[in-house]
């Protein structure tokens, strides 16, 4: 029985370091190759030695697919391809291919230049790695090789985020990456067709949350920012350069315009303008409204939002600053946070999920004293607000996707174990399908039951379709009989037995039987035969029954002759001869005229036994 195996190397009952291995129909596929924000040691990257202890990964993987540009999904890519060694195809969408190297370079700079780590991937490695990338278009069916095909669907999580359908023969798996089922201010909602995969591998970041309407959250957010500005406070919004940042910028830009606010809004890195360029050029990946109006007004040209300079942080008066990275684990957002943390008028708004171990995660959990490097502690006095703006599907959204795709099995990754457990129960209850949630390094095996595609000879098919009766109901199933020829387990042909003999160059072997049956019948031989003939004719409608002049009656391959017994002219000897394959045997027996009461005559027994 064919099996599909799924092993997370990362993101198994965890968020971060997404990396999932799938074995399907003899193909090995790696889904995402991310890094973990919560670690600075070896645990930062997936443990590729799980695949092979020594040597390159190329021999063990048929392809690698990256779902979107967030580092927890692509951060280990240059390490994997250039340092561990992988030369096979890497697939990602055009926007991901464009943006991913920039974020990788950023990540490299922070790690190597700022933290001084060595033995890390280099700029050249990022470039070399990107050369192996094959861009994917939405809905395009890409043939990785003769058997393995992949197809990308819109996931709506960030620009260029994709879900991917992986198919080998009639077995298939869908991997969602991160996705969002509700359209936001700059992206559309995820969508997939009813592709009925054997396994749907879904993220489950918000497995237990059912979020209120986006509009309410937006109003809350604007209210908080506004209040803080009004009382002269500074607002820090840690974000990743691409994604949520653009959504919130659009939100604030329109609010500032409407309320005629004067407080400056800054965006921290030099990436801003460049980032906005990507949005302009990949406008087809944004939501419908933006796409429709982009010719008149490009939503990604901001009037109120200016580039930030490090010195502005000490300026007096209110301001709003978007700073990277989003989890306060390094870089500019952390520096500004340290500066502003002591003043209760200030505010930090965390608009996304924070991985365990990051400062973002700590302050969100109410920690007000932070241990910094060099034993210093930082008192957190500013207001800490959490607004769930990160574009992940919530429990409702996950259920909605299951309804869309109709998977046979469900597998959860990219979430916390406790929350997954809850969602698993819900899924199993509502959809009556198995739901798995393997931990890292743990393998889930699902047996599949694929139907076997076979080439049927048109002659046989037409014949069987015609046999459906005089007025065939096309919906009504018909029985068909044939011979399946299997060559080297690759070619499957279904043909009629006759054709099978020909195809295989075999001779036919005829097997015939002959027996004598005695009957009591006073008529002449010819009469007896004629009575048999007329009776068979009346009973076996639709069959050709021949009465030949040489004194034989023939039905299909059955030959009947009558002669009188030498001793008694009333005893007739019926000579019956038939082939092994005869079809009408039952009917023929039913139709014989001379049967007496069932079971009483020895002759009957003989006839019965023929069958």
């Amino acid at each position: 029985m064919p099996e599909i195996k799924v092993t997370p190397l990362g993101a198994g009952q965890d968020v971060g370091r997404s990396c999932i291995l799938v074995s399907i129909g003899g193909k090995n596929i790696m889904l995402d190759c991310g890094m973990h924000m919560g670690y600075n040691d070896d645990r930062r990257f997936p443990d590729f030695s799980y695949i092979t202890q020594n040597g390159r990964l190329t021999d063990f993987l048929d392809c690698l697919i990256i779902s979107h540009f967030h580092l927890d999904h692509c951060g280990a890519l240059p390490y994997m391809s250039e340092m561990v060694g992988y030369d096979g195809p890497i697939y990602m969408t055009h926007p991901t291919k464009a943006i991913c190297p920039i974020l990788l370079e950023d990540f490299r700079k922070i790690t190597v230049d700022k933290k001084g780590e060595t033995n890390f991937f280099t700029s050249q490695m990022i470039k070399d790695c990107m050369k192996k990338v094959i861009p994917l278009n939405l809905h395009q069916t890409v043939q990785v090789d003769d058997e393995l095909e992949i197809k990308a669907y819109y996931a709506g999580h960030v620009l260029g985020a994709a879900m991917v359908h992986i198919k080998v023969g009639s077995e298939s798996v869908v991997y969602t990456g991160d996705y969002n089922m509700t359209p936001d201010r700059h992206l559309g909602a995820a969508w997939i067709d009813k592709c009925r995969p054997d396994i749907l591998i879904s993220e489950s970041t918000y497995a237990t949350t059912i979020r209120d309407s986006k509009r309410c959250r937006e109003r809350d957010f604007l209210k908080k920012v506004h209040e803080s500005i009004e009382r002269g406070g500074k607002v820090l919004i840690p974000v990743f350069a691409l994604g949520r940042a653009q959504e919130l910028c659009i939100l604030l830009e329109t609010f500032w315009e409407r309320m005629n606010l004067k407080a400056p809004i800054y965006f921290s890195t030099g990436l801003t303008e460049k980032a906005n360029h990507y949005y302009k050029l990949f406008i087809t990946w944004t939501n419908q409204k933006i796409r429709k109006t982009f010719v008149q007004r490009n939503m990604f040209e901001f009037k109120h939002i200016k580039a930030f300079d490090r010195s502005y942080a000490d300026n007096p008066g209110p301001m709003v600053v978007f700073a990277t990275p989003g989890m306060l684990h390094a870089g500019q957002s952390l520096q500004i946070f340290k500066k502003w943390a002591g003043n209760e008028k200030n505010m930090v708004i965390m608009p996304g999920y924070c991985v365990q171990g990051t400062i973002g995660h700590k302050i969100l959990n109410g920690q007000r004293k932070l241990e910094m490097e060099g034993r210093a502690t930082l008192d957190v006095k500013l207001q800490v607000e959490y607004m769930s703006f990160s574009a992940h599907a919530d429990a409702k959204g996950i259920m909605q996707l299951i309804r869309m795709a109709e998977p046979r099995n469900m597998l959860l990754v990219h979430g916390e174990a406790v929350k997954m457990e809850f969602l698993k129960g819900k899924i199993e209850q509502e959809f009556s399908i198995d739901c798995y949630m393997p931990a890292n390094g743990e393998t889930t095996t699902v047996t599949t039951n694929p139907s076997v595609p076979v080439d049927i000879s048109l002659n046989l098919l037409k014949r069987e379709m015609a046999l459906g009766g005089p007025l065939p109901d096309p919906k009504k199933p018909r029985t068909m009989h044939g011979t399946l020829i299997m060559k080297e387990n690759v070619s499957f042909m279904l043909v009629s037995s006759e054709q099978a003999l020909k195809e295989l160059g075999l001779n036919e072997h005829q097997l015939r039987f002959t027996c004598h049956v005695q009957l009591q019948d006073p008529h002449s031989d010819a009469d007896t035969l004629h009575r048999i003939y007329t009776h068979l004719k009346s009973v076996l409608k639709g069959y050709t029954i021949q009465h030949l002049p040489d004194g034989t009656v023939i039905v299909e391959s059955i030959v009947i002759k009558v002669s009188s017994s030498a001793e008694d002219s009333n005893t007739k000897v019926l000579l019956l001869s038939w082939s092994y394959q005869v079809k009408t045997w039952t009917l023929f027996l039913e139709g014989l005229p001379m049967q007496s009461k069932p079971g009483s005559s020895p002759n009957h027994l003989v006839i019965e036994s023929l069958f």
Partner: protein
Amino acid sequence: MKLYCLSGHPTLPCNVLKFKSTTIMLDCGLDTTSVLNFLPLPLVHSPRLSKLPGWVSKDGTINLEKELKECAGRVFVDAQPEFCLPERELLDLSTIDVILISNYHCMMALPYITEHTGFTGTVYATEPTLQIGRLLMEELVNFMERVPKAQSATSWKNKEIQRMLPGPLKDAVDVWMWKRCYSMQEVNSALSKVQLVGYSQKVVRIDSVQEIFKISHFCFRAVVTSRLFSRLFFLQELFGAVQVSPLSSGYSLGSSNWIIQSHHEKVSYVSGSSLLTTHPQPMDQSSLKNSDVLILTGLTQMPTANPDGMLGEFCSNLAMTIRAGGNVLVPCYSSGVIYDLLECLYQFIESANLGTTPFYFISPIANSSLEFSQIFAEWLCHNKQTKVYLPEPPFPHAELIQTNKLKHYPSIHGDFSSEFRQPCVVFTGHPSLRFGDVVHFMELWGKSSLNTIIFTEPDFSYLDALAPYQPLAMKCVYCPIDTRLNFHQVSKLLKEVQPLHVVCPEQYTQPPLTQSHRSDLMLELQPPPMPYRRCSVLNLPFRRRYERIYILPELANSLVPSEIKPGVSVATVSALLHSKDNKHTLQSVPKPPPMPPSKKRKRVIEEPPVALAPKPMLSGAVALEAFLATLQKHGITEVKVEETADGHILHLQAEDTLIQLEEDGTHIVCDSEPLRTTLRDLVLRFLQKL
């Protein structure tokens, strides 16, 4: 399988393919050459045009002064221009399930097909094709609607009168079928039926949905609509066996060829394709391999003009005119080759010292077309894609606009009239010179020999286009740029992909009329291509022996294969056949429920043996020695063997039974049923079952 040909224009095709039980329209081209018979629509009052004399037949019997005007010896219809539509009588358009669009030039007749015809199907096109196609339709509607002409001319269409008219009006065909332009409302409604597809996307087509929808609509008219929709929805879940997918054709943004196939039949539809490296993604050739039938349309209309050479000529003529102080008018479509022209000029401007010359692009869709061209990175050639990764706009006209070298305006009215400086270069439509802003520039610049008009679009004969403006002083340069496949490229392509049969417009099977000696300007193939013309109905040849069928897992697991030769196994299959929407599946025969004995006889006779599997065919031979040994093992020892010409006869003396063993047959003559069964099974051991 049949092909209905609704258009005779080789580059603006409209064919309908009946494939299995699906009806698929391939392209929806609108033949606009008919507008050449009409007078231009001026944007501002033109005294010259309004003073043209009306036409009266020489003998004075026919007076059509109001409808027909004479200009430089030719007669033009003075009414809103009309288009020659695809044939609408050849088949019922409401039966079309699917329309496949290959590029934005080949969809301009869409509203005539999808509106007011009962059409309920789906249109498939790529995103650039839809967006740019929408713009071009919008532009066409705009051109017509902003200079409304109340007068409609119909008298000249009368057969008796048309016969008397001078050419080319006299020879125009099907003039009664000509139609005015559609409205924006019809465009929107038509385009709302488009479903977007990506290259190599496999679109599974459910063929009978419409049929059933119609039937159910008929049967359940009383049932509330929601019920109907749920039924439709249910049907769409089914998988049909007909699959269509678009392939990059390299001609324009999002242009595609199409593959229509089932598991054992493949039709390739090749429409406007290009092997030149311009801006679109390169043509996908290899996917066209192994086609049973390849329908070939949209070859170059200028087989003798080299696009690169024409581009050079375009630039040098442009520079020459500007240096001499004249203006250059380039009548063109608002999308397509214009991107290449601008890119070429971007490199040329500085070297030719044209840095200060203003370039204008005037069209109601100029801005949109330029903006849209920059956002379709996925559909562009590799070089342009790489630019987007930087991120930079893929087309250099962004820079031309930024540096104010290129300016675009929605029309000659408004800003343009105040900012307009001469000498200049103007790109504007429509290339037929019958409507659009180009008409104004013809009137404005036509009288001066300093000015030049450069034709780059190949769709219209430039002499015919210029006819209503004669006499003209301005210079005319004809550099048609047609990047579509030429005959040399197409024969190489066909050699490579080797379709079994090729279907093409009849124009491609003979040299052009004007160059009848050029046998290199036609398709020569073995077997010869099947030509079509407007209104042809072709039977497409398919020699197919197999069909795809799916064996459900339960049945597959129950099959018992036996190896016949090394690597070859066989299994006999008895199963239930389900056929639905051209998709066939086999499943196990369910065990028949026990039938009450009283009814047995009747039931059995009425229904042929449904559940009863027939005995397999046998093959092989029974070896005498081994068979005797087997008999002995079963206690049959008294066997008399007699040799015959073809084999042996075994006489089982104690049992009074004969067994005739021959190379290709065995005959058992035996009156005892149990013994016969035993013997049968013993014989079967030696034979292979199929």
